[in-house]
């Protein structure tokens, strides 16, 4: 019936994953695992292929080769909407709000399998639709509270600041209860106070059992939140292990600073 997850099997397992854009090999045979209950970090210099890897996992791009297993099932090549419905959510490096919709509506859109998303139910079962809408609204207000955005509920999303948009990205995916959340540079361009809020929220969710896979350049955030840390350079994984270990790893240092003298 259900593919059971053995205790040792990771939540997400990527093997031999590759993606080329013409002659450019952006992701070049990546193997990695994200274990349930971790906040796994993904770092690497600009252009290392981190966002491309996320796009492959989330279904935005189809891989040229390799497999992706999420909760025991192969998902590579599936469309992004189906992967999201499996409980694998992602946020975008550059936030993608629905700018003319209010912040509240940006969230109320998200719950899965809403009756009112079917055209006819709005005419045939208006009572059920209204009930679900009230529930979605209550849930959205909770999430907005949690993400320190409650005051902005009725503001068009296009009017939020850069940092608030990052929070909105997170808030939207929290409308479902994702098993795994991919965050692409959640702290980039966010002021230090909001970074603290964001980090707190991520840690609180983590305590509730949500697994994270986070691309981040802010090493302070990485060191405080992530364990283990995966390092990519030129489309390949060059290190996987503790954050402290990454700081001392020769290949990692080379990737960031060029070949260092012995």
């Amino acid at each position, binding site marked *: 019936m259900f593919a059971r997850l053995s205790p040792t099997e990771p939540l997400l397992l990527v093997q031999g994953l590759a993606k080329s854009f013409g002659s450019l090999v952006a992701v070049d045979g990546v193997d990695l695992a994200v274990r349930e209950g971790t906040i796994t970090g993904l770092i690497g210099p600009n252009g290392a292929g981190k966002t491309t890897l996320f796009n492959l996992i989330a279904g935005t791009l189809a891989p040229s080769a390799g497999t992706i297993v999420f909760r025991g099932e192969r998902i590579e090549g599936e469309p992004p*909407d189906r992967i999201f419905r499996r409980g694998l959510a992602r946020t975008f490096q550059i936030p993608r709000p*629905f700018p003319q919709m209010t912040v509240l509506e940006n969230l109320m859109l998200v719950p899965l399998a809403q009756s009112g998303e079917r055209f006819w139910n*709005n005419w045939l079962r208006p009572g059920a639709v209204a009930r679900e*809408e009230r529930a979605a*609204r209550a849930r959205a207000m909770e999430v907005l509270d949690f993400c320190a955005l409650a005051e902005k509920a009725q503001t*068009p999303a296009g009017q939020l600041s850069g940092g608030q948009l990052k929070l909105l990205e997170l808030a*939207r995916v929290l409308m479902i209860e994702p098993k795994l959340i991919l965050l692409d540079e959640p702290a980039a361009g966010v002021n230090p106070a909001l970074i603290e809020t964001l980090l707190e929220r991520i840690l609180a969710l983590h305590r509730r059992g949500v697994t994270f896979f986070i691309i981040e350049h802010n090493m302070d955030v990485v060191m405080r939140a992530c364990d283990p840390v995966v390092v990519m350079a030129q489309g390949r994984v060059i290190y996987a292990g503790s954050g402290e270990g990454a700081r001392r790893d020769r290949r990692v240092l080379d990737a960031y600073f060029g070949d260092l003298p012995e």
Partner: protein
Amino acid sequence: MTGVVSYLVFFACVVLILGIVTLGLNLQWGFTGLFNAGVAGFYAIGAFTHAILTAAPQPQYLGNFGLPWIVGVVAAMAATAAAAWLVGVLTIRLRGDYLAIASFGIAVSIQLVTLNWEALTGGSQGITRIPKPLAGVFDTPLAFNLWYLALLAAIVGALYVALERIVRSPWGRVLRAIREDEAAAIALGKSARRYRLEAFVLGSTMMGLAGALYASFIGFVSAFDFLPIVTFQVWAMLIVGGSGNNRGALLGTFVVWGIWTASGALVTKLVPPTYAAQGAAVQVILIGLLLVLTLLFRPQGLIGEEAVVSRHAKD
């Protein structure tokens, strides 16, 4: 005096019929971001389906089944929906501009078919003797047009209320999300393809309904009623009135059709018949000018988009 009244009633009927087409396009473009460049084609399918099914039998025609009015209306909507579904399945999964090119091509093909398949559509003669509903009861032209105006007002009113409701429903919210950022909507689990197809079929079905209402209002249809200029006019109506706003769509229909008919009347008065073609071109240029001025100085249209918020997400 009665001449003016009958003319105004006639004019209002045509505005309401075209208003249904513009409301359909607004659902597709204004709320979902679908570029339908084949409006005239779907309008034609509705009109010809209705005409073929309801017109009085004549030996030289394949169709002309003499069926009741309501059968013609329902069948017109069904035929248009089926055609839109087919076009949608073949193109919507592909890129957005693909839909524009494909729908334009299909509208042109439909027009050519209606022009050339004489046994079915009457070719350049068109189909005549399309029965008018309750024409026996309302037996003067003015009485009939008044009754038809009331009927159209009721239909447009019902459609308007239904559309206002549906764009504020969860379904409409997904459409608006797709229009604003399709990739984000997909990343949040929405099957954009399904919603695009639904909006495309529904909007086109409204165009088919309008076609049927047009055929049974005029009592005559021909291929020349569905040239690509119709698509252009309807787009102008939507843009001038304000896309993404149902009241704007209706106002734009009134304004553009008003300018079109007034300029048409002037041209016939002032331009000698030998220059009729140039005169018609003046009409097109006028609408084009109006469109360009709108895009330059009031891109949101006369009314502009209103902030649509789901019913249950309001303050």
